[in-house]
């Protein structure tokens, strides 16, 4: 089980801020592909992979990052702090 977290408009499109999720996906990109197939909300949230940022265990990663051992995966749009 991985804890999934969603922020900003990705959270709004998915419809929840966090959930526990069982997956065999090997990489972040595989997981995104899997999530897109769940329902329309997920498909909408992940429709443009270029505008999705991912953190594994609270560290920014690239889409090819492996998920092995990950406890928490977070999805969010490009950051706009400051």
């Amino acid at each position, binding site marked *: 089980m991985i804890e999934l977290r969603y922020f*900003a408009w990705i959270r709004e499109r998915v419809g929840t801020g966090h959930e526990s999720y069982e997956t065999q996906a090997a990489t972040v990109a595989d997981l995104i592909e899997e999530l897109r197939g769940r329902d329309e909300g997920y498909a909408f949230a992940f429709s443009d992979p270029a505008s999705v940022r991912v953190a594994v265990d*609270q560290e*920014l990663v690239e889409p090819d990052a492996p998920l092995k051992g990950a406890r928490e995966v*977070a999805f969010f749009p*490009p950051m*706009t*702090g*400051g």
Partner: protein
Amino acid sequence: MQVRVQSEIFDMGAELNRFAERQVNAGAVVSFSGIVRDLATGGLKFMVIEHYPGMTEKALQAIAEDAVQRFQLYDAFILHRYGPLAPSDPIMMVATAARHRGDAFAGAEFLMDFLKSRAPFWKKEITSDDATWVEAREADEDALTRWKPDHSPD
């Protein structure tokens, strides 16, 4: 070095003074404060900032440590708010202390560039009839390239 994430408003002058008073023999102190602007069209009621508790603090700490090391700063400070913010409220501030002004300025710009694009904050602008997530500016992502080791500074 200190990083702080809070929803409460803060007093940028008081924060600057506290930061400066902590310094021993720094010749140069630079601060940057970000303030909620109204929209070009007017009518901003408030802004909401969402963040990623846990990751936010770690990201800010890493950015501050990186700045201190790169620019041999005596100290660095980052404060960022989340939650609802009114127009003309301060959003965040950074401060740096160094021996000479060049490092203090460069350190503060570095903090800002990384904070903008690498710390998990998202802004939403609320008007009376709309709520819009602020889009990341390409210029903000581009700003990071100037800090790459192979990018020869001017």
